[in-house]
């Protein structure tokens, strides 16, 4: 029996093996390759997506457990052709190197800022403790997030769509 869910606001179904990780459904089935496959063990955070309004590692979610779930990936975190405040800050602060970790970081931080209007540096570090970057130092990422705090917070509706 097919599993039905919404992906970035659109209805989808998946009729394959219900044990398939959401990560593979997204990348192979839906061609949403912004979600990255790295450790496949819940350690690195590169595969983080929003499921039911919470950021979780998609490599750890069998699709069969997600009947009726609302899923938002990096492709749907902002309206088409737009960037959300986290994405904009990352560009402006030039923090991205290879980019493998950044879709997961954007998802995690967008949710974090929605819940924490006035974050501290240590709060940001704690929020990112499940998102690893092998290229950058984390300090510039944190600088970028702190700059958002001074201007705007990510639109809640973009996260929860």
């Amino acid at each position: 029996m097919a599993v039905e869910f919404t992906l970035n606001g659109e209805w989808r179904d998946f009729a394959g093996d219900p044990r398939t990780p959401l990560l593979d459904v997204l990348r192979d089935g839906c061609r949403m390759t912004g979600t990255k496959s790295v450790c496949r063990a819940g350690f690195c955070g590169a595969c983080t997506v929003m499921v039911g309004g919470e950021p979780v590692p998609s490599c750890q979610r069998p699709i069969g457990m997600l009947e009726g779930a609302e899923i938002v990936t990096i492709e749907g975190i902002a309206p088409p052709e737009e960037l959300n405040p986290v994405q904009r800050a990352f560009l402006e602060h030039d923090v991205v190197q290879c980019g493998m970790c950044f879709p997961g970081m954007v998802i995690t931080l967008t949710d974090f800022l929605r819940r924490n209007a006035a974050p501290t540096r240590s709060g940001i570090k704690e929020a990112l403790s499940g998102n690893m970057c092998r290229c950058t130092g984390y300090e510039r990422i944190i600088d970028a997030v702190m700059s958002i705090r001074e201007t705007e917070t990510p639109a809640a509706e973009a996260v929860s769509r």
Partner: protein
Amino acid sequence: MMTWGTARKSGISPLTSPETVDEALELLAGGGPDTRAIAGATWIMRGPTRGEPVPARLVALNRIAELRGVEIGALSGRIGAMESHDRIARALPEAADLRALAVAAGASANPGIRRLATLGGNLCAVGFVAADLIPALMCLDARVEVATPEGRRNIDMTEFMAMRRAAGPFLVVAVRFGRSGFRTAHARTPARDYPVSIASLSMATDAEGRIADLRLAVGAVEADAKRWAGFEDRARGQAPDPAGMAALATEFSADFTPVSALDAPGWYRLQVLPVLVRRAFEQIRREG
């Protein structure tokens, strides 16, 4: 790449989502040998990275309402097996006797995994040495409600740790514990991510400030967490001096046969244990 158990039995879906405990037990009993229950699924889904294929049939417990709920009263508490670490950490009230459990739930793994990984999964994942909740629940003297095809039982944590390897289907429904005047602490290293050594402590002192009663549980050192009976017996009646307690931990560390794994060799797990014992006693002293 994902690897899959292949012993499919015709007509049974590789993933079923029962709505009652009895239905889940039936599916576990009838699914064949390569059938496993999944709660948060984090241990099973990362199986392929350990060289363990995802089982042929999974019984997902996320639709069973009875396995939910964090209810903390003045005299006792109950936590449903399907509650996540994140939910538990956020739902526990600020209280000295629950501090170890709150730290265990709130510091484990990373934020994404804490939103998925459950109490029941932590209790049942044989082979997952770094479980934070188990030693914390041992300190609370928690009892585990276990459902089997023969009926339900409430057993203590030590008995549960032995029975969880038993053949035959079972499910953890909830844990229950009494509230106490004990003060608790949960010290682990590293502070984040997956611990390689854990000391979880609960303690009550007498009118002279000496240890009247204590429970010290050690996790991530041996394959299964356990109460440290030798330490507890010697510590009762003594002053809860952190340095003295660390010395006692060193003296009795031969009580353990530590496991070695990629994240830490056995000797290291044991070597840091007295430091964690000291920190646990320091936390209790500091936080009163």
